[in-house]
């Protein structure tokens, strides 16, 4: 098992093309931890903004009457991929992992696979 900081560092180093990673509490919109980012990618802004993305999708599913849960959300930009992975382990409800990737360097399938592994090992 790995703690928050180790997991985020792992996401930055093990996943090719990572630009920044954050663990976010979407009940408050605040980040529990961030790694990477910088002036071009403010991870606290990303945490708050993507909280709205997750909440909107949860609400939409409720309205559609879908009795299911979100595993992950992919947002494809011109030059980046943004991956949101909701945590499902016991005691980590209401959290998601956020990962920004450089589209030119990243392998999306591998990134998704690695993020799933990191999530499974993460202990809050």
């Amino acid at each position, binding site marked *: 098992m790995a703690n928050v900081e180790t997991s985020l560092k792992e996401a930055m180093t093990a996943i090719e093309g990572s630009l920044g990673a954050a663990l976010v509490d979407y009940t408050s*919109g605040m980040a529990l931890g961030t790694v990477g980012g910088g002036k071009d990618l403010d991870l*606290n802004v990303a945490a708050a903004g993507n909280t709205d993305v997750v909440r909107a999708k949860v609400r939409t599913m409720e309205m559609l009457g879908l009795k299911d849960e979100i595993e992950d959300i992919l947002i494809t930009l011109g030059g980046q991929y943004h991956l949101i992975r909701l945590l499902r382990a016991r005691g980590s409800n209401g959290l998601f992992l956020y990962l920004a990737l450089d589209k030119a360097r990243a392998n999306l399938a591998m990134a998704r696979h690695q993020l799933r592994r990191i999530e499974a090992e993460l202990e809050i």
Partner: protein
Amino acid sequence: MRRALKQLAGARQPAAADPEVLRELRMLRSRVPHLTGALAVGAGGALLAEDAPGARNGPLAALTATVLADALRLVETADRGRFRELLVRGESGYVAAYAAGPATFLAVLAEPRANVGRVHLEARRTGARIARLAAGADEGPQEG
């Protein structure tokens, strides 16, 4: 700033709402979901502008000033620099206060499901803009 806050906690006087400040408060409220009210509190605990329907704004502004006077002492005593913001969470929501210049504050009311990260980001920006507006107003004729 400390003296300004002591004045804040003391005598308060009604003030006509500043339209520019009011516009900032309305913009803040429209941008952040579940943000139910915003108040700009100036020197003397006076309400500069408010966009908080249903809230008891007069007492709220005065009380914010009183609480902030203590918050300011706290942050000073703890050697944490100048006061930036204060967040109080109750069972049915949040009350937050942000510095908006040397003697002006922005108080914000939000529902429990508000995105606090977003409230912080947007309210800090609004606070900075109100600070600029207040600084501009200070150049005009002013008492004391």
